[in-house]
């Protein structure tokens, strides 16, 4: 997707420092086009949520500037909030209220006309599959139901831009897939721009038009998932021989197709010089050398490989280091702000 279209979200040198802490966000530049799904991928504590809080006007930047929906996030906070919807980290719901009561409160606070409050609430609950649970207290909802209600609440005032902060963390695969479908539909059918933070590679890969990889407050790579993967190179093939004694012979054959790469102790792997098209050649060569194979697998480069290549660490387990944790919802550093 081209970013030359009108940008919905722009940031230049965005910085956020916390007292007695490192820079949670360290000079981020963003250009996100209207209708685009942008995946902001990184481990815990990388700066994803802090960036989201600044772009949604809930946290003033220490330096830099950002415009969301054409409005400056510092000088035009109310206008920004008028065009965005947000489902922030951990569904912020009242366990004592029902789904319907949440919708009524949210529609009223957004100033929807009285006659539209009930219909809009019911329409959104239906859309996210919560119509039957609408009169149940949210305390009894599953994690997936809470996330879907959270999404519905963010859509009450028909926002042009949607911020989703780790929307599927902790959800089972069915709930995750249902949420992905709804987010895709919002972007495709309604033209909503989606800024989605995630620590799941698969989520960014499946859902996002473009991905920005953030680590320690800086964007280390950005592009479409395909671009990013192609940047770091070629697929690898990993083979486990049927007999361990043939491991050396197997390595000699495979090395004709590329340089060795990391593999499990029983296996031999090489990065294919000619790409995945060489797989057939590899199989034929193994057959010709009379090497029996227990297992053969082609590994396409993943976003984790991209993260590894850019940061020297794997995304899995690259969590926050002490003192780097991002602010919890509601645990923002107290600063003077405009009157509410």
């Amino acid at each position: 997707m081209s970013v030359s279209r009108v940008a919905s979200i722009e940031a230049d040198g965005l910085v956020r420092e916390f007292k007695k802490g490192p820079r949670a966000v360290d000079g981020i530049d963003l250009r996100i086009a209207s209708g685009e799904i942008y995946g902001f991928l990184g481990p815990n504590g990388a700066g994803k949520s802090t960036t989201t809080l600044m772009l949604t006007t809930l946290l003033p930047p220490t330096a830099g500037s950002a415009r969301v929906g054409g409005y400056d996030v510092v000088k035009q906070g109310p206008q920004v909030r008028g065009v965005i919807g947000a489902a922030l980290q951990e569904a912020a719901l009242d366990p004592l209220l029902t789904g319907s009561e949440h919708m009524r409160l949210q529609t009223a606070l957004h100033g929807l006309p009285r006659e539209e409050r009930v219909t809009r609430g019911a329409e959104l609950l239906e859309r996210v599959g919560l119509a039957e649970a609408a009169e149940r207290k949210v305390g009894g909802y599953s994690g997936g139901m809470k996330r879907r209600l959270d999404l519905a609440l963010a859509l009450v005032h028909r926002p042009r831009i949607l911020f989703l902060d780790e929307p599927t963390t902790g959800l089972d695969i069915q709930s995750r897939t249902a949420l992905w479908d709804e987010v895709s539909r919002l972007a495709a059918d309604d033209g909503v721009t989606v800024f989605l933070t995630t620590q799941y590679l698969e989520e960014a890969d499946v859902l996002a038009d473009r991905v920005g990889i953030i680590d320690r407050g800086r964007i280390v790579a950005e592009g479409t998932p395909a671009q990013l993967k192609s940047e770091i190179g070629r697929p690898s093939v990993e083979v486990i021989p049927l007999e361990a004694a043939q491991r050396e012979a197997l390595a000699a054959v495979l090395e004709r197709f590329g340089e060795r790469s990391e593999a499990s102790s029983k296996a031999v792997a090489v990065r294919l010089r000619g790409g995945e098209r060489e797989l057939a050649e590899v199989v034929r060569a193994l057959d010709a050398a009379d090497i029996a194979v227990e297992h053969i697998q082609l590994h396409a480069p993943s976003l984790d490989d991209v993260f590894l290549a850019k940061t020297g660490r794997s995304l899995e387990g690259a969590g926050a280091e002490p003192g780097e944790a991002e602010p919890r919802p509601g645990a923002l550093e107290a600063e003077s702000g405009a009157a509410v």
Partner: protein
Amino acid sequence: MSGERQLATQVGYLARRSVVRTLRQPAQVVPAFVFPLFLLAVNTGGLARATRIPGFPTHSYLTFVLAVPFMQGALFSVMNAGTDLARDIESGFLNRLALTPLRGPALLSGLLAGALALGFVQALTYVLVGLAAGADFAAGVGGVGVIFALSLLITLGFGAIGLLAALRTGSGEAVQGLFPLLFVFLFLSSGSLPRNLIHTAWFREVATYNPISYLIEAIRSLLISGWNAQALELGFGIAAAIAACAMLAASAALRSRLART
């Protein structure tokens, strides 16, 4: 929608949420009724002979001590209103509200509505229990109305203190930690004895400077002596001052807490 109408809608919906939340938490509501009534029964039974002290203003210790449950009930509003808001801060619900065009006064007013609703029912309960147990209501029906008004003003002030504590600390535990501290103020007041009959000099001094003494004495005057303008002026004045100061401080704390641009 005009600004005033929008504000009224926001207050209405947040007030409704606050009342619904209060009603759906029996564990929060029941102690606010049972605890003051239990202490009322214990004190009335155990300290009845205090009325024999020369100069004691009434022959009925129940009538004398009936003002105290109104204060204890109001103290529960510190915990209830504050804990609810602290929970909203901890869960991120306040951020959800901050992303709407919600106005600060609407948030505070709405949150206090639940405390006031509970405060009204508490006051009604204490009046009915007092009537059933034979307490005097010297100022009559009008006096009962004034007791309700003062009681709600006190609840408003104490509820706002709870909101202030929640906004400053963002922690439900911290708000609950404030509760016993405020009870110390209640014990160091003229709740159990008239100030002029407190023999221990430092206790009498503390009770004299303790604003809670004057809140109790205003309610007590309506029960024991009828219409006492000075006691009522002091009671309403101090309650209004507490409410105004606490609301102003809570508004400032809300602006700091909601660092939205």
